[in-house]
């Protein structure tokens, strides 16, 4: 049933694409005719299409990475936040995607999330640290399901194509109107006089071009925004279908909108992609035709009004009831075979509400870990956060003044001996002594060849806690509470450290 939805979306995208392309070509033709006289239309069309091709090429090749970088999102590994990755995997299975999206974290207090990537197989989901601090498991699942739905429904593709079209139309009209304004319309006359054409015949074209240049961008924008809003509703509906739990997304949306922290990473380009519009839109805009997102109160109300289970049809009916008129948010072919899905029960929340503070602290630590901090547990019970710039061998505890060793991976004595023996006997290569492939020789290790390739070693201080230590190259490695392997590979230099 998801496939019909995607197909219906594709048809709509095509429709929109053709509509906007016609507008763009017409704009090119009339501006060309108006500015250059008879025969200029062809040239105008060529300019319009070329503009569009250049802009699309830029957005296809650099788009998703650029958006992620603009948002200052950092890619993370599963051990940084196992729950987030679990939820992403759950949604991957539920939605039938072939590959899990990559996961990024944005170091911001404002709760929000977005998805990007032109193909579902090569997509990314970014969430802010604030989102992780504020939401419980069910709510986080709702948000990730919403983002996964965007990926599944090819909304990013659609938004990219549409925004490039919109950009081309706006740019062309803008240049033309400015040209007209500054030259007082004389450009056309001058051009025509050179061609010694019969005057006057061009006037209808000039008027048509001006009308198109004024109305075209307006029309294109309305089209773009209206469909963008519809896609948000559709993603909400699909998210509920994936999680079978409307309340999760509803309360997540409430929490996100209730947090009055500005999102610094948001700008005009990535704003439409977030789950909740991050820019301070005026009251008129937020509810009107010019908004990329539907008002949040309405989204929440629809989710809470779903009385016929968690299916798409239930969402459709709830939407129609609240609006008082039947609106097709979900393409009809998508809900034909929709069987009523029972709403599941809430998860027993592992994190009780009182320990929200602890959750906040955990996420703050998580952000430090992402940024390369190491953590030490002092004997007095204080958790010391060591910034990555600190190269000292030890640090004094700010509470009790005790000196704490900063753990670093050390060259293992055993492996050194084994490597030396291996080198003496000469039968095996030094690296074979521990069956570990080494990508690079260690930095700053003792001189002999065998010792250079011996593995680093780190002995764990506690079990069942987060731990971190730095590799020989200075890169920070994280051990999760559930880490059970005997070795770890450095993401930076590729060296293996044995964990004891």
């Amino acid at each position, binding site marked *: 049933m998801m496939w019909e939805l995607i197909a219906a979306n594709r048809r709509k995208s095509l429709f929109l694409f053709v509509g906007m392309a016609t507008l763009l070509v017409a704009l090119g033709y009339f501006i060309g005719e108006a500015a250059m006289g008879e025969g200029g239309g062809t040239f105008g069309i060529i300019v319009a299409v070329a503009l569009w091709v250049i802009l699309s090429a830029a957005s296809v090749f650099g788009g998703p990475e650029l958006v992620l970088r603009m948002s200052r999102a950092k890619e993370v590994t599963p051990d940084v936040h*196992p*729950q987030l990755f*679990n*939820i992403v*995997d*759950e949604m991957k*299975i*539920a939605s*039938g995607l072939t590959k899990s999206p990559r996961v990024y974290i944005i170091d911001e207090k404002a709760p929000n999330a977005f998805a990007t990537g032109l193909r579902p197989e090569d997509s990314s989901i970014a969430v802010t640290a604030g989102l992780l601090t504020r939401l419980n*498991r069910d709510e986080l699942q709702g948000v990730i399901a919403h983002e996964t739905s965007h990926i599944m429904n090819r909304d990013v593709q659609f938004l990219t194509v549409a925004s490039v079209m919109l950009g081309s139309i706006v740019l062309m009209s803008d240049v033309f109107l400015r040209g007209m304004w500054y030259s007082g319309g004389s450009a056309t006359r001058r051009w025509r006089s050179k061609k010694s054409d019969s005057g006057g015949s061009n006037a209808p074209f000039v008027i048509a071009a001006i009308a198109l240049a004024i109305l075209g961008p307006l029309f294109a924008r309305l089209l773009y925004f209206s469909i963008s809003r519809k896609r948000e509703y559709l993603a909400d509906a699909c998210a509920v279908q*994936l999680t079978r739990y409307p309340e999760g997304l509803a309360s997540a949306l409430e929490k996100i909108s209730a947090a009055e922290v500005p999102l610094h990473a948001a700008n005009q380009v990535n704003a439409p992609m977030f789950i909740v519009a991050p820019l301070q839109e005026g009251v008129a805009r937020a509810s009107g035709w010019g908004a990329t997102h539907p008002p949040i109160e309405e989204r929440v109300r629809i989710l809470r009004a779903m009385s016929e289970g968690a299916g798409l049809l239930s969402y459709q009916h709830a939407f129609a009831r609240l609006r008082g008129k039947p609106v097709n948010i979900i393409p009809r072919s998508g809900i034909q075979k929709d069987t009523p899905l*029972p709403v*599941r*029960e809430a*998860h*027993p929340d*592992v994190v009780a509400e009182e320990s929200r503070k602890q959750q906040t602290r955990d996420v703050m630590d998580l952000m430090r870990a992402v940024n390369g901090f190491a953590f030490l547990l002092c004997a007095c019970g204080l958790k010391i956060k060591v910034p990555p710039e600190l190269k000292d061998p030890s640090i004094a505890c700010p509470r009790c003044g005790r000196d704490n060793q900063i753990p670093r991976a050390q060259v293992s004595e055993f492996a050194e001996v084994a490597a030396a023996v291996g080198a003496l006997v000469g039968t095996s290569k030094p690296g074979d002594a521990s069956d570990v492939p080494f990508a690079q020789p260690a930095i700053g290790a003792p001189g002999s060849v065998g010792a250079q390739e011996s593995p680093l070693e780190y002995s764990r201080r506690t*079990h*069942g*806690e987060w731990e971190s230590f730095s590799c020989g190259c200075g890169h920070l490695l994280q051990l*999760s*509470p*559930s880490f059970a392997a005997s070795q770890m590979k450095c993401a930076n230099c590729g060296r293996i450290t044995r964990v004891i």
Partner: protein
Amino acid sequence: MAALIFLAVVALAAIFFVGIYNSLVQLRNRVKNAWSQIDVQLKRRHDLIPNLVETAKGYMQHERETLTAITDARSRAMGAGNVHDKSAAETQLSAAVSKFMLTVENYPDLKANQNFLALQEELTATENKIAFARQAYNDAVLFFNNKIEMFPSNVIAGMFNFRPEENFEIEEPAQREAPKVQFTR
């Protein structure tokens, strides 16, 4: 001329035949693939449970029964062969696990154990993944079984011995045992 028409008809029939056969194979493979998705998650759950029990043991001295119930249900589930046996055994295991999770509420020390929390998160995620994978599997089975029963593909399915597959049902304990409300004591 007649021979030519005859040949054309035969060729068309052959193409039709091959097409149906291939689509049947494709659907059966989709079922198999969906099953392996479930199987991965079931195995993962089987792997997690001993750790969970081991961690909980120290805190839950008086809950031997609950813990043995889980361990037994797990070994039964691991021994189960076909889809039918598996769904029965996994249903029992789910029930045992959810009973255990309810018992955990009485042990605040256990709930504060980081290791236990990490395991619990893994278990929750695995249960969710099983539920979602089961949905995909049952959809694939429905598609395949419909195809086998419907004309004309049922003829070819009969010739090549395509058998209908079985749904994987795990009754969720919460749904099966409706909450009992008692007003009198």
